[in-house]
Structure formats: C-alpha cells, structure tokens
C-alpha cells in the first residue's frame, strides 16, 4: 500500500457539528423555494434551496449527492479495463471523452505510449465528443429559456454523432471504447469512418451552426435574458478553480490541450516530428451566460477544424500497442490460434494474474467539453487500482453557482444552470 489507511487524527473535523450555515441571516418576507431535485430545468437531480424575496434570489444553497453512485469506490474493485464502463457513465452527454480521459490516465501510470493511429482516432473521437456535448449545451441554453426549437436543432445533429460512435465502438450511447494501450477493436473500415465524419463536419454541422446562430445570436429576448446574468470575473474564476468554457468565458486562457498537450495536441505525436494540430482557444471577457454560449459556439467551430486536419491523416498500422507490451488483450484469432496469444489472454483475465502494474500514482487530465477532466490513479501493483479519484469539471464549476445567481432572479436560475452545463452523474459520481 502506498499510503496508510488510517485517517489523520490531527485534523479533528466533525462533519456533523460543523456550522456551515453560520452566516445565515433571518430577513423578513423571505420564502424558501425548494428547486429540485425533481424539476424540469435541473437537467437531472440537482437540488437548490432558494431563499426568495419576491422573485429575487437572496440566497441559493445547492445540495448535491442525489445521484451519488459510488463510482470511485467501484474503481477499486474493477480492473483497469473494466472501469471504463463506469467512467463512461459519468458525463453521459459526451461519454467517449470520459473513456479517453480514463485510459489516458491509466496509460500515463503504466508508461505506455499509444500508437500514432490510436492517437489520431482518439483525438478525432474526443473532438466529436466535444461537439456532442456543446451541441446539447447550446441547445439547452435555448431550451431553458423556453425556446425548444434550438434544442432540437442541436439534438438532431447528435444523431449523426451517435452513428459515428456506434460505428467505431459498437454502442450508440455509452461506447466503453478504449482499452489500456488502444481500443477494444480497430476501425471496421477506414474509408467508411472518414466518409461518415466528413459528412458530419462538412454537411450536417455547418448547417446546424448556421441554424442555431440565426435563431439565437441576434435574438433580442435571448440576449436580454443572458447578457450580464451570472457574471464571474477573471480573478474569481481562477480563485474558484473554474475550467473549460466557464473559465475561458471569463478571460482565463486555460486549455489543457494547449497547456499540457496530449494525444495529437502534443508536438511530435507520431514520433516522426509531426506538428500538433492547429486550433485557437476561444477566450471571452465578460464572463456572463451569453459569453459562455459564444465560447461554446466558437469551440464547436474549432473542433470541426481539428477534425478536418486529422481525418485524412489516419496512419496505417496497429490500433493497439504491440503484443509484447503484455498490456492489451490479443485478437481472438491469436487466442485460439497460438499458444502465446492464449497465455497472454489468461495472464490478463485470470484472477490471480493481471498487469505488471507499477506502484505509483498519477494525476492526468484532459480537456473535456466542460473543462479539465482529470483522474488521480494510485496503482499498488495489483490487478485493480488502489484508489481512483475523479476531478469532474462540473463539481468545480457548480461550486460557484450561489456566487453566480445571488442577487439575480428566479428565472435566471435556469439560465445559469444551463450555462454551467451541470451533469449530475458526473457531479455526484
């Protein structure tokens, strides 16, 4: 065990007796509105206790944990490949990004460098996941304000993303696609994949972006509802450790893809001196809900640009790292056809065997659509991780919700929740 299991006695914190509402003031004419956990605008099961003065929010207290499922504890009982199915179910709006994030962390711990082909396909899929998330969030920005049509314009295009994800992984929604050292299988057919992705980014996506921008960007009601609502300054955004579009809309130039590059965002990703993919980071300045919408819209365009650079450069070769790495499950043909393959499979799947895992720890993050999605993994040499900890972007972003909403109105609650893009499954884990 790399750590002692006993809690640190010197802290002496008793959660039960902590007066976390010490600063509560009883003001006259207030009433408490229990917003959620079953409410159409909370997207899933968020609960916010609002103290209202008329329609004005004096105090908002988010209560989280309604969707807590013990994902992290489960990680200690699943092996390095199995837990991807759980990770996939965290941010269910763009599950494939979670797969990539989890195995990116595991491969960092193992010291595996995946093949160039895997890097390209993973980068494309990560960007497609970003499109998937942003299209929903942009649409939901309209939905929360009562404009249902924009939501379906975004959702409609997600169908084509589902098709691509299904083609790559075999599952439409929760792909569980990545494995240590690669993916569970190679692309069925490169040309079909290229054709599907090209059709999406060349034909479908521009049309959807145009539709949404025409519908929302200059819509007077939409702008009046979002501009100046839920503002957070650049300093506060850093202090509250916001990431992703939330931080960038406030003017923080933070993007893990640029700052700590990985996959094809890193230079020399193919070992032959390839340049990293070119894209711009969308940074806003005002930090209000409308700016977050604009940042997401710009990121959609940048994602399309990244995919456009990579889609014709998918290298030939193996998707998984070589069989000698002893990290990947061999193809079924090898398992049945050769003694080495059989042994390798047994070494990986049998209870008393498993990976030769280094004892150590890593925190590795990627830029998920909502911000920095990191996994802290501790390996203790066993078949299973000793500890898995997720840093979900929603958790950090949602923390500042009272700061964003207090002093605004009840109707702004939904606008702010929509612009944070809280995914409760990821928030509560």
């Amino acid at each position, binding site marked *: 065990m790399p750590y002692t299991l006993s809690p640190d006695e010197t802290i002496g914190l008793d959660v039960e007796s902590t007066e976390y509402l010490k*600063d*509560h*003031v*009883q*003001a*006259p*004419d*207030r*009433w408490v*509105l229990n917003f959620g956990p079953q*409410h*159409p*605008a909370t997207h899933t099961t968020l609960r916010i206790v609002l*103290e209202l*003065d*008329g*329609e*004005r*929010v*004096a*105090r908002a207290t988010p209560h989280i944990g309604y969707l807590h499922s013990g994902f992290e504890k489960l990680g200690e009982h699943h092996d390095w490949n199995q837990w991807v199915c759980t990770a996939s179910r965290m941010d269910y709006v763009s599950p494939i990004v979670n797969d990539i994030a989890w195995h990116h962390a595991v491969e960092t711990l193992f010291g595996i460098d995946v093949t160039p082909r895997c890097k390209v396909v993973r980068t494309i899929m990560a960007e497609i996941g970003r499109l998937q998330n942003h299209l929903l969030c942009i649409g939901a920005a*309209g*939905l*929360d*304000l*009562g*404009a*249902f*049509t924009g939501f*379906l*314009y975004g959702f*409609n295009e997600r169908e084509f993303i589902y098709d691509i994800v299904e083609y790559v992984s075999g599952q439409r929604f929760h792909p569980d696609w990545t494995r240590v050292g690669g993916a569970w299988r190679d692309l069925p057919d490169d040309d079909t994949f290229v054709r599907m992705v090209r059709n999406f980014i060349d034909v479908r996506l521009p049309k959807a972006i145009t539709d949404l921008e025409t*519908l929302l960007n200059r*819509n007077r*009601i*939409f702008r*009046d*509802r979002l*501009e*100046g*609502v839920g503002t957070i300054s650049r300093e*506060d955004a850093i*202090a*509250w450790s916001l990431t992703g579009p939330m931080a960038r809309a406030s003017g923080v130039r933070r993007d893990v893809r640029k700052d700590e590059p990985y996959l094809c965002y890193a230079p020399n990703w193919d070992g032959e001196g390839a340049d990293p993919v070119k894209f711009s980071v969308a940074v806003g300045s005002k930090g209000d809900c409308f700016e977050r919408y604009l940042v997401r819209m710009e990121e959609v365009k940048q994602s399309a640009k990244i995919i456009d650079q990579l889609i014709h450069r998918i290298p030939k070769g193996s998707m998984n790292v070589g069989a000698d790495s002893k990290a990947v499950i061999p193809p079924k043909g090898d398992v049945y056809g050769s003694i080495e393959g059989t042994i390798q499979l047994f070494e990986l799947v049998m209870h008393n065997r498993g990976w030769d895992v280094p004892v150590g720890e890593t925190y590795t993050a990627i830029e998920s659509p909502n911000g920095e999605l990191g996994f802290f993994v501790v390996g203790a040499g066993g078949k299973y991780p000793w500890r898995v900890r997720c840093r979900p972007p929603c958790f950090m972003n949602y923390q500042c919700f*009272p*700061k964003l909403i*207090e*002093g*605004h*109105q*009840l*109707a*702004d*609650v*939904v606008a702010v929740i929509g612009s944070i893009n809280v995914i409760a499954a990821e928030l509560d884990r």
Partner: protein
Amino acid sequence: MPALMGLENLTQYLPSWVAPTPAFCQIVTGMLVILVMLHVILGGCAYGIMLERKLSAWMQDRVGPNRVGPAGLLQPIADGLKFIMKEEYTPRGADKVLFMIAPTLIMIPAMISFAIVPWGGTLELSQLPFGLAKMLGVEGITVRLAGAVVNVGMIYLLAVASLGVYGVALGGWASNSKFSFLGGLRASAQMISYEIPMGLALLCVVLTAGTLDPYAIIEAQSHGNGMWNLLQHPVAAVLFYTCMLAESNRAPFDLAEAESELVGGYHTEYSSMRFAMFFLAEYFHMITGAAFFSVLFLGGWSLNPFGGSLDLPMQGGLPIVLAQVGVMLGKVTFMVAFAMAIRWTLPRFRFDQLMKLAWEGMIPTALVMLLITAVFTYLGWASSIWAGSLLCVAVMYLVGPMLPHQKNPNHRIGMIGSRFSPLVEGTGSVSSHPVAMSDAAIPDRRQGLQSIH
C-alpha cells in the same frame, strides 16, 4: 315539389306568440350560430393542439404524431380519452372549492367572448333554398351570422377578455404550491399590464371606424369602403396581436406556466380533465384573439386588402354567407398558426422584461398612436391614417430614448443575508428594493454578512 305540398304556410302550425319578426329570426339564428360554432371551435381546439404538434414537428425537423388513426388524425381523440381516464388529484392543503372551480372560471370567459364574433355577413332569408322563406313566412327579413348582435361589441370584448385571469390566479392560489402561486401572481400582473395597450390599440380602430359594432368595423374595411386596418393601422395591429399573445398566455409571454422555471406554473398541481380545461382555455383564448384580430385588422371576411369594390358582398344568400364564414375561418386558422410559429421560435421573457416591454414600450406607443389617430380623425384625414402610423413610429424613435427607463435590469441587487450579493452601504449598490432597504429586522449586519472568499 309534391312532398312539400300543404307546407306552404308552416307558420300556421306554430303557437301564436312565435311571430317571424326580424328580432325573432335574429335570435334563432344566433342560437344556431352558437350551437354550430361552439362545436366547431371545441373541435378546433382539439385539432389546434394537433396542428401545433404537427407545426412544431415541421419546424423542428421531426415527424410529429402519426400513430393514431390515418396520418395521426385521431390523436386529439386519444389525448382527450387519456385526460378523462386520468386520476383527478387534489393536493393536500389545497382550497378544494376554489381548486375545483378555477378551471371553470377560466373556461367561461374564453367561451362567452365568442358570442359577438361576426362569423359571416348578412343573410337574406328570402334567398334560402327550397322556398323555405315563403314557407316560414320570413321573406324580406335579413339576419346577421353572429351569436349576439351587440352594437357595443368591442366593449363587451374588453370586459370579458380580462375575466380569464381569475381562473389563473385562483388556480395558482388554491393549489397550495409555491410554483403555482408564483405562476398565478405573474399571470395577474401580466394581464393587468397588457389590458392597457390592448384597449388603446382597440380604441385607435374604434376611433377610425366610428363605431363599436364589430359588424360595422368589418363593413368599414371591405367592399369599397376602405383598406384593411392592417394597412391603415399597422402599429395598432402589431400592438394588438402582441397583447393577444400575452392575454392568452402564449410564448413568449407564457411566464405564468414557464415549464422550465415554474414546472407548470398555475396548473402544476392539476391533472386529468381539470388540466385539460386549462389547456383548452389557452387554445380558446388564442382562437378568440385570432378571430378578433381578423375582425379588427384583416377585414373579417373581406378578400381585398386594398378596399377595392372587387370583394365578397356584405349581404347575400346562403352560398355567399357560407363563403364569408369560410374566409373568416381561414384567417383565424392563419393567425393561430402564426402564434404557434412564434411560440416555437422565441425564448420566453423574464418577468421584469415583460413588464418593461409593456410599460416602457407598448403603453407609450399606444398612447401616441391614439393621440395621432384622434387628431387625424378630427381633421378628417381618417382615410390616410397609415401616415399616422409612420408618424407614430418616428415620434417613438425620437422620443423613446428620452422617456424614463429602468437601468439595465440584469445587474445584481444587494440583498440582506446574501453571501455573494450582500447589501453594502455606501458603495452605490444599495437597491431600491423595498425589503433590501428596510433594516428593521436585521440583528447584526456585520456579523450577518460574511463572504466566503
């Protein structure tokens, strides 16, 4: 016709107090019209929902309901059946009596305002087929195709239209739910605010036409008498249509239900047919509004917007009158579909923005428009009142920015007890908010306001 032999004078079989006088004929016609139109509009509501679902599906690249019956045409009947079968649930703590009568209170005003809509022109009874006129002894009598011929019909409309809010406010209050209560409150304030520009826009038309009789207002817009009021009074038309949307609680003014904030607003706690009545009332209001818009601004059954003599006649036999009814219903359907298209395009206002639109935008404009109309009418320029609308737009464009405006409503307001938007004295963020200003009940402000970061 041998079968009709001996029936030449049917009136001999009638009791003596039934005399085929013009007034009696009008009452009978009115009852017939009410009987027919009530069913047409009830069916219209059911199929209006269907139209809305199909229209939204078409706008949103979907298919829409297509499972029940041929091309989904029986969907409204299935919906109705579902509503009847559902459990009628009354929440605990609800005021049972008010909770029960609120749906009725919203239905009644929606239905009775139909009474004065002139669905068709004047029917000459002597032109009835099969010699019916001679048989009934009603030759030479003319009747109007309206439920009730009221020569102050427009005042009746204003009186009845605002009654609908009682159902909304009571339903919201009686439900014993905070979401419903907020919905009811919003609806009351909204209705009161939007009655004003609606009445003012109506007055512009009434001033130009010189009458309160809907029939005469149509007459003034058709058959060589003048252009449609849509061309004569574009500003008033836009104002009236906007108010109509607000009166019927349609998007972008559906704050009273606001499904993303208030779950369902005033009808959150309603289920079964009680909910369906709220739903139907909304469509009723929409159809009434569209009918009055057609009467006031689209020339009723007139087919010529520019007021030439090439038009449907005001008076005629059954075929002409039926054509008039058809034109009228066509215009109503178009206006209803337009309201639906607006609903599926625009987001919802926030409450203060809604009030701002009414009090800072629509009411001043309507007042200016009314003043201009009055002056034009006094000077006898009523036939070129469209120039008055242009003048009104110009005046509002120049004067509008000088009117008192609320400053940007999207800024935070300091509140007692708030952690991140606290009330800070002397920093300029002290609001005009009544509770925020009263510091009677604050125990210790310095202790109370502490920021986490």
